[in-house]
């Protein structure tokens, strides 16, 4: 069977599991069966996607959906690459959930929607007409909404679900209108008609803006990111991992599919809004994450940052392509796709780790944890590994993709437009700033959560998580290491996608000596993750052995020293808030209007001192709160219409009729 058939078959298979789960969810062992089946199907789909990466595009039409349109499927390199990303993430989440899902109090609220969510995401990748695409997009949104609402009685979750629903509908509306604009130029809702058509500059510009809102809101671009840090953490942890690691990638796929392929040849100025929004998203997202004390919300904000990086590289790729600089476009696009793959890997591990902590302690607030490395040795090591990778530290995969992004910026002075010449260095600074802030963010997250002394009894009595969960984390960590040590393999695997979208591919990396990656041959810039890893590991091991052999090998365990004050309790440790206080004071006081108020009682008073901190998200302050107030105001005014007499209603109907007739009369 063809890869397309196999991937298309995965969708009804997932839906069948969803139906099965709806009837059996309350039975014992239902979770294992559902997640086990999802694991098998997702693994097969990932393998099929991998096989289809370098194959020629295949299409399929099914007589479903709208009668005059049918349902069009198409599998090309781009779909296949994202199918690999989605289904590896789905397989890992399913494996994790075999263990983690056992602790679910109400499995009937999770099990039926989980496979439906996977089906929706897989269907988006295969859709080849606007109707199927939007149907799949909505299936994905609604299934994930149901999963967000799984624990609807927990504080804040209902609000998160409400805001998510509004934003998701709004995003789909924007996409619908975007497709409408494209279809009006193409004369049809099929993607091949849109590909063949050349929209006018106006149509293309409007479609770009609408897609940026529609796909961007699902991906979490500033300022339409506000739902993401609320909704992603509210879902069960394996679903959080899917939403953050995988669903945002489906949104990236939608953006690439439409903007790089359907809208037609790019203009250079398209890249301006994408670069600006991408840069701001990266910096703002990670600054938020640094201020956050809820572990899962911290990870969600970090997702926003990574999405910013991906969109930034996509903006660069568009700028290069508009200027017919195919090599630069290939480099930037490879960096973006590589980072999308990487982010799926490490963000899933981080959410899995968060889920393990949540299950072991019942606590998401890092201020109440600490010292978990002693009681959760394996999951803490996996979390540390993923944190190192996401912090873009060599030799792991996060560094490899960010290094490519930096190299793409390094080629961009050749861009001829002044707007880009002035913007790209600023965007490069934001990228560098974000990269540094990520490292700080994850030192803080890991340090407060796992290191130090336990701050509460629940942290002191935590236990390691189950084997399935650990297995899922370890598998993804191994993939992180492989992608970091052998980035050339990933770059070469992505080359068919890049060739199709950018018109060129990066130089073949498998041919270079020692598996070094060389993005631009004449610049002599190169990076070899394998050798760096080998050197660092070798030096660390030999130095540890040499230090013991040449010097003293005696080690004594003693009470901590702490400059001679060892008796202070665990609460004398730095908290997460105090650890990030310098950064809050220096950066967040401007960007996020962070304020702190110290309430110090006068000497002699026995009341406790207080410190109040507040941070504001500019997107809420400037956009969504005013919109909410305007809607409430308008609703208040229109409320009067609910209490009119029948005469007035009839009068209104009459007036409307007159107005419509006049419009018709004047119009013809």
């Amino acid at each position, binding site marked *: 069977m063809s890869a397309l058939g196999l991937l298309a078959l995965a969708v009804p298979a997932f839906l069948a599991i969803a139906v099965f789960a709806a009837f059996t969810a309350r039975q014992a062992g239902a979770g294992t069966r559902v997640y086990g089946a999802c694991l098998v199907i997702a693994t097969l789909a990932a393998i099929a996607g991998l096989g289809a990466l370098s194959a020629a595009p295949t299409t399929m039409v099914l007589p479903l959906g709208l009668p005059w349109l049918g349902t069009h499927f198409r599998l090309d390199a781009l779909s296949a690459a994202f199918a690999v990303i989605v289904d590896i993430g789905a397989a890992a989440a399913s494996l994790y959930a075999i263990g983690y899902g056992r602790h679910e109090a109400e499995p009937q609220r999770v099990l039926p929607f989980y496979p439906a969510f996977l089906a929706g995401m897989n269907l988006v990748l295969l859709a080849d007409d606007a109707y199927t695409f939007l149907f799949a997009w909505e299936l994905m949104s609604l299934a994930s909404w149901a999963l967000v609402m799984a624990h609807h009685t927990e504080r804040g979750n209902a609000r998160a679900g409400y805001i998510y629903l509004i934003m998701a509908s709004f995003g789909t509306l924007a996409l619908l209108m975007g497709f409408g604009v494209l279809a009006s130029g193409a004369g049809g809702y099929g993607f091949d008609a849109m590909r063949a058509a050349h929209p006018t500059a106006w149509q293309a510009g409007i479609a770009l803006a609408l897609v940026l809102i529609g796909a961007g809101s699902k991906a979490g671009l500033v300022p339409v990111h506000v739902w993401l840090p609320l909704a992603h953490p509210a879902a069960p942890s394996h679903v959080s991992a899917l939403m953050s690691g995988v669903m945002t990638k489906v949104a990236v796929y939608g953006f690439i599919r439409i903007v790089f392929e359907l809208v037609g040849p790019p203009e250079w100025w398209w890249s301006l809004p994408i670069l600006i929004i991408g840069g701001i998203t990266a910096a703002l997202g990670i600054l938020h994450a640094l201020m956050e004390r809820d572990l899962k919300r911290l990870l969600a904000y970090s997702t926003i940052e990574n999405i910013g990086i991906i969109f930034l590289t996509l903006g660069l790729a568009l700028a290069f392509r508009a200027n017919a600089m195919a090599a630069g476009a290939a480099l930037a696009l490879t960096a973006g796709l590589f980072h999308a793959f990487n982010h799926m890997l490490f963000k899933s591990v981080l959410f899995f780790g968060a889920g393990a902590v949540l299950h072991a302690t019942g606590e998401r607030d890092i201020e109440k944890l600490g010292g978990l490395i002693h009681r959760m040795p394996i999951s803490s090591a996996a979390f540390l590994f993923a944190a190192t990778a996401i912090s873009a530290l060599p030799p792991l995969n996060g560094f490899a993709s960010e290094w490519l992004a930096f190299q793409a910026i390094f080629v961009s002075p050749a861009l001829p437009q002044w707007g880009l010449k002035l913007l790209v260095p600023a965007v490069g600074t934001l990228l560098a700033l974000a990269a540094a802030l990520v490292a700080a963010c994850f030192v803080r997250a890991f340090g407060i959560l796992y290191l130090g002394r336990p701050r509460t009894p629940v942290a002191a009595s935590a236990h390691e998580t189950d084997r399935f969960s650990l297995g899922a984390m370890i598998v993804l960590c191994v993939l992180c290491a492989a992608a970091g040590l052998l980035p050339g393999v990933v770059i070469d695997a992505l080359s068919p996608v890049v060739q199709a979208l950018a018109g060129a591919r990066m130089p073949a990396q498998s041919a270079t000596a020692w598996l070094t990656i060389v993005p631009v041959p004449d610049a002599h810039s190169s990076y070899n993750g394998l050798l*760096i890893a080998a050197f660092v590991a070798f030096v660390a091991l030999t130095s540890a052995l040499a230090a013991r052999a040449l010097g003293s090998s005696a080690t004594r365990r003693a009470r901590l020293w702490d400059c001679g004050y060892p008796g202070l309790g665990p609460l004398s440790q730095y908290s997460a808030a105090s650890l990030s206080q310098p950064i809050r004071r220096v950066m967040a006081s401007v960007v996020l209007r962070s304020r702190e108020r110290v309430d110090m009682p006068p000497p002699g008073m026995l009341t406790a001192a207080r410190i109040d901190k507040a941070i504001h998200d500019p997107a809420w302050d400037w956009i969504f709160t005013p919109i909410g107030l305007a809607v409430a105001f308008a609703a208040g005014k229109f409320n009067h219409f609910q209490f009119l007499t029948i005469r007035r209603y009839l009068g209104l109907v009459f007036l409307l009729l007159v107005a419509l007739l006049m419009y018709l009369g004047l119009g013809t």
Partner: protein
Amino acid sequence: MIGDLILQGVQMAIVLLLAPLLTGVVRKVKARLLRRQGPPVLQPYLDLRRLMAKEAIVADTASWLFVAAPYVIFAATWVAAALVPTYATGLVFSWTGDLIAIAALLGLARFAQGLAGLDVGTSFGALGTSRELMFSTLAEPAMIMIAFTVALVAGSTQLSSIADFMLTYQAGLRVSLAMALLALVIVALAENARIPVDNPATHLELTMVHEAMVLEYSGRHLAMIDLAASLKLLLYASLIACIFAPIGLAGTGAGMGAMLIGFITYLGKLFGAGVLLALFETSIAKMRVFRVPNFLGIALMLGFLGTLLLFVSRSL
């Protein structure tokens, strides 16, 4: 091939063996400037030997990370230092990592150091980590922007290629390079915990940063961290020397004589860097912690402006 490997090995050995000497020179010159006798120049070696011979004391709240961190810090710093050309460019492994990778390797060392500061669960360690994080969030992007500036002039982010290009003196005097040099000096001062950002000789909790993070370390672990700190100082001295003062550096494929000259000039450059650093440190006061972001912000701005100038001047 064997010869190439030996030359690479010599480079790795040189940086490791010379690093404590540079620290010793700086201390000695500083002491003499203050009209003190000062410890012998070789004192850092003696300190390392003494620390190695002592038993290591590990707090009972420490995890495996506390014990592993010194070796990771040392390894990452040493590999980074070995990637910077000292006496010759174009060594066999010089293409392993570029300037961005060197900055990121130092980031890896800082990551491990910051976590180690939090591991035992004392307020001092976390205080150091907290401040270090704030400094690094400005120093690291500044370093990347410096890398951009230099790379745009030289046409590569590969340090060996940059040094080769600088050796030809095609770059001439450029405003961007001057900005990059100034920014790099600021970053170097901050990264090496020197005055005016941090004071390597203090143990006063109001001011210390680096020393606070390593407060719980002793014995061979402390020796590793001290050696890594010396290596980092040497790395920045070599980095500034190979980009902005490549004179004497043996180019790619040069013979033994040129390499010998390169080595002797390298020693001279290191000595010069040590004296300049000591002079600078004795003539300036330490800043308040919350002044440091302004200081580092200057470096970031200079790096940004240097890059921007080069972007803009491409079309002129």
